[in-house]
């Protein structure tokens, strides 16, 4: 069994790079609550593949550019 992986994300940085997008704006764009965006940014929630794809799509990038394994 592979070791438990921590997943780091660049959501906060990407949000600021995309016109200082607010957490609420991002939440509305990707179809989740603002609390989920906050938890994502704090690394306290790992999204489903579908939500990860929607986040990447909202920033016009790939999932790998947004999410990386802590070990990488």
């Amino acid at each position, binding site marked *: 069994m592979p070791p438990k992986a921590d997943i780091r994300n660049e959501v906060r940085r990407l949000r600021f790079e995309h016109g200082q997008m607010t*957490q609420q704006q991002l*939440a*509305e764009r990707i*179809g*989740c*609550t*603002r*609390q*989920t965006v*906050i*938890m994502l*940014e704090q690394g*306290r*929630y790992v*999204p*489903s593949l*579908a*939500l990860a794809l929607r986040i990447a799509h909202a920033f016009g990038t790939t999932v790998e550019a947004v999410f990386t394994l802590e070990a990488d």
Partner: protein
Amino acid sequence: MPPGEELPATHLQRYAGWTLLEIGFLTALAAAIIVFFGPEAWWSQDGVRITVTLILLVALASYLVFYMAIRKLRDHDDALVDERDLVILNRSGVGVGGAMMVVMAVWMIALVEAYNDTGMVPSYYLYLVFWSLVMTNVIASLAGILMAYRRA
């Protein structure tokens, strides 16, 4: 999130909190009536039995309305209930079994201690045990939602 700002509550969190308050109040009211009139009033006084049953049915109806509201919010286009809320909702039942076991143990110890001499437990206690387990299930699952948000 700016420093000092509190984590915004989700719709599920708010609804669960209000429903828990409402059902907690109704359950406490029903319990207070039974304690005031005595458990034997369940059989001997129709008014007490009907009043308590109605209060508990209203509480169960509130629980049903809560689930229907969450279902409706989940299907809403604006993602008022999202995937994380659903994960939390699924986790909320973890403590229900334990809470029911505790209530059963309390009933068992209390009834054995009270009726050990005669060996005969009045049958109205069966109804009270049933209702207490139903309400424990409801309250524990709502409290479980709020606790799951704290842990998540």
